């Protein structure tokens, strides 16, 4: 397999470099002094300047190796049908690489240094999670998340620490130089659920959104608690047990509030700065993307400098700035930021897991104490379960929608520990904490256990738990249709009845935000474009415009519409080309009048290839094995319930069914605007063109098989209300006719034409609709208006 040879090649290269490094590092101490004084015996042409490039070279090489490991793992996983969690496989890769380094150096020269981890690997991951956080979901569940993050973590820390201490006193761990405070310290660093691990595992397991946001939010917000507990217990350990009194404990509690809120406020402050900056970067669009990263990182470092919670700072920076930044920046910059963010986050996560593996291959740190390790794992899991169930039971009493037991189980099982715990363990001071190596070893084992074993079993567990209702394998078609319809109905009813978080506070906040904050932080143009309907319409217009120009270019000139050319445009799905050729119209028997340009729809995606010979098409249809069930399954619109997974590490399009949304919107907008018009202007929508019977008659004759003609919404879409208002003066006959009976020209024109044809409605591209001609007595004679 090519990738394995590549990997071995890399490993060989790496081996060479590491041996070089190994040798050099021994001599370095001596040669560093002599470096400048080396006597040159002769001139050189080329020489090996390893010293000069050593550090950056190794860093970049490691990044490269981690990336290759990820490729390798992804390929492997594809073959294994995604059985293993990728993070677990990366750790194993790390083991292998660590083994190589170990073999070369007899010492682990490359470890996951806490400093590197906390300053260079972690910030971008947290920024990524904050930036892509589903805000509405997050804030509506914030109370529950905080309860779990704060109380749950404290409980975990305390319970694990105290239990271990009890077991130690009971003699289960043999002889250790350790006291209660150190156990508590250990408990506190192990208690925190890790965001990196959670994302890595939950992304592959699709759970419902409330559950996801609880675990995810908890993993982010518990950093405040972890930092405080860690620092407090660290200080206590230094002070010694005797000096701890009520004063110190109160200081600890106060510091919790200061650390958490302080960190969050710093994040918010930086978010404001970013939003303000992007407001004024209109002239330097090329660099505005960079500001997000720079300021995000600054917020992390600033909080770290003030000994506040850095993770909370970056999280809230991302959470608060996303909306304004996305509105202010140019679309290209927005895409650039999103993509770059994902690249960094993915890269960092890969490196973290690989290094977690590499670090393990080191005999210095390993202290094996069976009792300690096994009891730690046991207590960590058990207390997690107890904590989650108790807190959720309490929360359920105040919730309208109780969290089910299954979800609670998944939540407890999903409490994964990760690199943050290791980082904290590695930064312990070994002079004060004699058993540092034991702690590091245990932490590593716990991390491996949670990431690999729990990650491995998470998916099967979720599947197994949800297999309560066995769907009957062969439902009748009407049942399937009804199932999907029910999903749509439920989604609609939920919208009508209002979501859970929809209450006075959220509405008040929204009002405040809309008036003051958007004024302050958003560009004026961006503010105007916030109107939802308008933005969708705008997008559709843009798409049509692009298609229109593309077709025009294909045909040689944009004047093709007026020349009465009855051409039908074909397209080929397979090669992604818009037009595979222009075929002559074959249905001359239907005469539509002087200027008729038949409908085409030039969507670039997934249009079935067409045969314009009707008979052939019919034959094909009859011969085909027509599977209604299959067709139904494939083409029903998905309801909102099916795309709830809003956070993904590798995919940054949140709503992937944008096409669907557009389709539905186009279709329903027509009827909506009709009723909207009638409500506004008292015009009765009597002149409604029924969508369905009319087009199907004509279109079927020559367009068999292209697409569902009933879906030509563009054909009948009237101009938007803000244009309509100008034209719906009933005294001006032409424009009203234009509204009622829009030109039947290529769809891509529809939305453009209203903008152009203010009065010239009876233009060359108005079709003479046979039925429509007879339905209105007040219709003006068809002439050049």
């Amino acid at each position, binding site marked *: 397999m090519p990738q394995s040879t590549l990997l071995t090649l890399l490993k060989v290269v790496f081996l060479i470099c590491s041996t070089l490094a190994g040798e050099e590092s021994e001599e370095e101490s001596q040669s560093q002094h002599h470096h400048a004084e080396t006597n040159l015996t002769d001139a050189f042409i080329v020489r090996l300047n390893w010293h000069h490039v050593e550090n950056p070279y190794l860093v970049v090489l490691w990044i490269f190796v981690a990336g290759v490991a990820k490729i390798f793992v992804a390929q492997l996983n594809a073959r294994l049908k995604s059985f293993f969690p990728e993070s677990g496989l990366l750790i194993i890769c790390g083991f292998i690489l660590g083994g190589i380094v170990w073999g070369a150096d007899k010492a682990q020269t490359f470890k996951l240094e806490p400093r590197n981890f906390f300053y260079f690997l972690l910030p971008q991951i947290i920024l990524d999670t904050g930036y892509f956080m589903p805000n509405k979901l997050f804030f509506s569940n914030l109370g529950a998340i905080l309860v779990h993050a704060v109380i749950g973590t404290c409980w975990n820390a305390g319970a694990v620490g105290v239990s271990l201490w009890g077991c130690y006193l009971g003699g289960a761990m043999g002889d250790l130089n350790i006291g209660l405070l150190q156990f508590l310290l250990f408990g506190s660093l192990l208690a925190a659920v890790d965001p990196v691990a959670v994302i890595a595992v939950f992304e592959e397991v699709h759970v419902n959104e409330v559950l996801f946001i609880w675990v995810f939010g908890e993993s982010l917000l518990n950093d405040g608690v972890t930092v405080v507990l860690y620092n407090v217990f660290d200080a206590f350990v230094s002070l010694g047990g005797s000096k701890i009194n009520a004063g110190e404990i109160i200081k600890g509690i106060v510091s919790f509030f200061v650390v958490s809120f302080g960190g969050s406020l710093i994040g918010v402050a930086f978010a404001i700065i970013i939003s303000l900056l992007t407001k004024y970067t209109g002239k330097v669009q090329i660099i505005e993307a960079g500001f997000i990263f720079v300021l995000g990182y600054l917020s992390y470092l600033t909080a770290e400098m003030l000994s506040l919670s850095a993770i909370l700072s970056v999280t809230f920076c991302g959470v608060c700035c996303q909306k304004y930044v996305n509105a202010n920046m140019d679309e290209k910059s927005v895409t650039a930021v999103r993509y770059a963010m994902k690249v960094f986050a993915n890269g960092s996560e890969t490196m973290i897991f690989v290094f977690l593996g590499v670090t393990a291959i080191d005999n210095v740190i390993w202290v094996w104490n069976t009792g300690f390790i096994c009891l730690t794992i046991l207590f960590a899991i058990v207390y997690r379960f107890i904590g989650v169930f108790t807190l959720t039971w309490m929360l359920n009493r105040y919730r*309208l*929608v109780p969290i089910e037991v299954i979800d609670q189980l998944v939540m407890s099982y999903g409490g994964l520990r990760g690199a943050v715990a290791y980082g904290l363990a590695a930064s312990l001071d070994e002079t004060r904490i004699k058993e540092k190596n034991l702690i590091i070893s245990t932490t590593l084992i716990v991390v491996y256990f949670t990431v690999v074993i729990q990650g491995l079993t998470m998916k099967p567990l979720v599947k197994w738990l949800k297999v309560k*209702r066995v769907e*009957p394998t062969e*439902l*009748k*078609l*009407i*049942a399937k*249709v*009804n*199932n999907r*319809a*029910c*999903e*749509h*109905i*439920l*989604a*609609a*009813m*939920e*919208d*009508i*009845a*209002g979501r*859970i978080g*929809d*209450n*006075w506070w959220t*509405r008040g906040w929204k009002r405040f935000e809309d008036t003051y904050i958007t004024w302050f932080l958003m560009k004026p143009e961006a503010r105007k474009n916030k109107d*939802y309907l308008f933005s969708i319409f705008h997008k559709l217009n843009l798409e049509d415009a692009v298609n229109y120009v593309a077709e025009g270019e294909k045909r040689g000139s944009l004047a093709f519409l007026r020349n009465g050319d009855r051409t039908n445009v074909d397209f080929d799905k397979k090669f992604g080309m818009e037009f595979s050729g222009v075929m002559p119209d074959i249905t001359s028997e239907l005469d539509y009048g002087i200027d008729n340009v038949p409908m085409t729809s030039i969507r670039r995606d*997934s*249009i079935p290839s067409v045969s314009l010979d009707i008979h052939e098409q019919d034959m094909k*249809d009859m011969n085909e094995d027509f599977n*209604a069930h299959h*067709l*139904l399954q494939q*083409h*029903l*619109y998905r*309801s*909102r319930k099916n795309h709830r997974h809003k956070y993904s590490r590798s995919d940054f399009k949140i709503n992937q069914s944008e096409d669907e949304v557009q389709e*539905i*919107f186009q*279709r*329903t907008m027509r*009827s*909506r605007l009709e*009723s*909207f018009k009638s*409500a506004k202007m008292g015009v009765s929508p009597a002149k409604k063109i029924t969508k369905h019977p009319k087009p*199907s008659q004509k279109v*079927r004759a020559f367009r*068999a*098989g*292209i697409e*569902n*003609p*009933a879906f030509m919404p563009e054909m009948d879409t009237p101009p938007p209300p803000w244009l309509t208002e100008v034209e719906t003066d009933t005294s001006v006959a032409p424009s009203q006719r234009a509204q009622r009976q829009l030109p039947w020209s290529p769809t891509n024109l529809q939305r453009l034409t209203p903008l152009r044809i203010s009065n010239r409605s009876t233009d060359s591209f108005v079709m003479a609709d046979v039925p429509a001609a007879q339905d209105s007595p007040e219709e003006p004679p068809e002439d050049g208006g």
Partner: protein
Amino acid sequence: MGSTSSTLAKIPNAEDLMQETGFTPAHLVRLYDRFKVLDKDKKGFLTPQDFVAIKELAMNPICDRIIGAFFTSGGETLDFPSFVRILAHFRPIDKNRPKEPTSPDPINSRSNKLKFAFQLYDQDKDGKISRHELLQVLRAMLEKQVTEEQLESIADRTIQEADLDRDDAISFEEFRKSLEKVNIDHKMSIRFLR
């Protein structure tokens, strides 16, 4: 916002409504607040435009039918009791309800839920889903790429599978029979309305 009991007092016929629909006071209050939010012009009743203004509803393929279900018989106004009665269909089924043969089915019983769904398909209220009505529903719910022929074939096949008395339409009984294996409670309940 006040406590539940004070807002409850503002709702006319709250007791009867709760009895009829089975909503708890807390739910009724929440729905009343929601009703007031939707009723932006403070008219005291809702119109179809108020529903259309709900952003997410616009994304729903069958939103027109759903709005139509609220405004039965072409009326343009919806008062609070009617609003609540429709939503009551989506309460989860009370498993512990004693079965009294004399009292009528509660609004959220399985058969009433099915009737609600049936009415969404049967727009002309003749008690049957004709081929034409089925075509309309399918068109609304299927993507653009499905051709007219395919659509008609699906509709034909659907009726063929469910139609027992060969009248080329699906009556309510046939509809119910086709869905007997489906867990309607799960499919047509919103948990937060319990």
